[in-house]
């Protein structure tokens, strides 16, 4: 029995450094940021006098933040919808006994290996609006050549498009990931199930519609959670591709936070943005973590 307790002690000792680090650097720091968000720290000198929710009130009255929230919603909806649709489409097509499936898969997935900074640099030039002297460049030039001049646009420089152009780049980077998740899910569905449906006279389309898609629902949920939280946090891509843009048309809360905290020294305002970001991510993630923990216990 003594040996067992000694092992108990060792097990706790092994995990303690990590547990303590996370306790301090995640939970403690979040608490500290929360405190700063309720204080009056606005400038180089730290000021921790509490002022209640005033920073939040001011923040929601700030035009830039209102635009940011609006942009986040637009970005998230567009990015999620296009990534899910493209990811599912590609997965279904790749599931049709495709020759050189591996090659296609690798091509669709490789952007995941890149930094958002690299993606941002490339797409900034691809979606460059061009100018009067230069004429069309990038994607616009392709449209010209293909006789699709109608589709030309000012992309991220056009305030009515703005953040949607960033969503195109994000979709390029992440839709392959969704494809991979769906494909892995489809490969997990036993062939007998399809075979039985075929025997019953179901067409391939019906099999996908009524058997495969419903079984893939947990994957759709995972994909929505993963892409959703990335989308709420998006910072690098905006930073490299556009910056806040004309009239903040490509600005997002995460960028505003960085800008106001580390360039403007408005620490309390930055902290308030950070806490709002955290709460929005938590609203998405915590139910998911609880749900995963529960289903795991059931297994």
């Amino acid at each position, binding site marked *: 029995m003594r040996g067992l307790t000694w*092992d108990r002690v060792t097990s706790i000792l092994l995990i303690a450094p990590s547990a303590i680090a996370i306790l301090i650097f995640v939970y403690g720091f979040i608490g500290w940021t929360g405190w700063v968000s309720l204080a009056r720290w606005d400038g180089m000198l730290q000021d921790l006098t509490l002022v209640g929710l005033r920073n939040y009130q001011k923040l929601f009255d700030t035009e830039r933040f209102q635009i940011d929230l609006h942009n986040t919603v637009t970005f998230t909806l567009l990015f999620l919808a296009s990534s899910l649709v493209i990811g599912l489409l590609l997965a279904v097509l790749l599931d049709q006994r495709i020759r050189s499936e591996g090659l296609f898969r690798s091509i669709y997935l490789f952007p995941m290996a890149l930094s958002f*900074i*690299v993606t941002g640099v490339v797409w900034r030039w*691809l979606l460059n609006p061009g100018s009067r002297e*230069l004429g069309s460049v*990038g994607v616009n030039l392709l449209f010209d050549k293909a006789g699709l001049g109608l589709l030309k646009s000012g992309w991220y420089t056009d305030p009515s498009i703005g953040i949607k152009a960033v969503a195109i780049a994000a979709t390029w980077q992440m839709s392959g990931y969704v494809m991979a998740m769906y494909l892995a899910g489809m490969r997990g569905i036993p062939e007998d199930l399809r075979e039985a449906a075929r025997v019953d006279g179901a067409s391939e389309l019906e099999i996908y519609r009524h058997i495969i898609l419903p079984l893939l629902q947990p994957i759709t949920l995972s994909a929505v959670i993963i892409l959703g939280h990335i989308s709420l946090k998006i910072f690098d891509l905006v930073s490299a591709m556009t910056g806040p843009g004309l009239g903040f048309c490509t600005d997002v809360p995460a960028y505003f936070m960085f800008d106001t*905290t580390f360039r403007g020294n408005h620490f309390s305002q930055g902290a308030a943005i950070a806490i709002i970001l955290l709460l929005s991510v938590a609203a998405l993630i*915590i139910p998911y*973590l609880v749900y995963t923990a529960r289903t795991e216990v059931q297994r």
Partner: protein
Amino acid sequence: MTVQPSRLLIYAILIIFAAFYLMPVYVLLVTGMKGFVEVSLPRMWDLPSGLYFDSFLRAWFGSQAQGFRGLSTNFLNSVKLVVPATLISAMLGSMNGYVLAKWKFRGSEVLFPLLLFGMFIPYQSVLIPLVQTLQKMQLYGSIPGLIFVHVVYGIPITTLIFRNYYATVPTELVEASKIDGASLLGIYRWVMFPISMPGFVVALIWQFTSIWNDFLFGVVVTPNPAVQPVTVTLNNLAGSYIVEWNVQMAGALLAALPTLLVYIFLGRYFMRGLLAGSLKG
């Protein structure tokens, strides 16, 4: 043998999408290889007339005349950062995963999701105290500081990867060694560690990729341009109006090279890490 038109359509769609995903790579490559004379935005899609590496050289070494920084030292900074940070966090993850999978204690079911939450948080919500703490620890603005940060915030994902991996190892293996009188550390050293290779490959690749590609910690923790990782330098290069766009493209390709190579040669394991990231590994 006749080819069904529906099959043709499937291949056509797949190929069109392949072209969409490869388009930026094409532009990166042809632009990087053009000579400075033939680089012009309206000729962006044209093939280069020959192979020139001027853009790559300028992106790598920078230009004193134009007054901008090349990627060379910062690329090296990233290497110095990524290698130790990746190794340490994989080691930590392995030990945590072992305990959480095979030595469950009271509260470990609560501890695990609490750890996991750390990988989803927007890091903005810890940046202000992080900078203050690193300053107190004398680690602010240095590569060791960045290593420390990546190790700490890498704990959740590496723990998850290893816990999921060790969960597939039969518990009987651990029980049998216990009966033979082996201790917790002994079992780790002689039973678990030797079969941990697949877990390590996934965790190492995951951490290598995400630390190499990180921008936020780099730009916040290391304000000094000489110490910054390569993503931050690339971002500065791209944000500068004096740097020609072909140099920016060449720089992007250089900065992307290490993770691209990992993807090309170890893609299978990269994929496993991605799926583990969705908690379902």
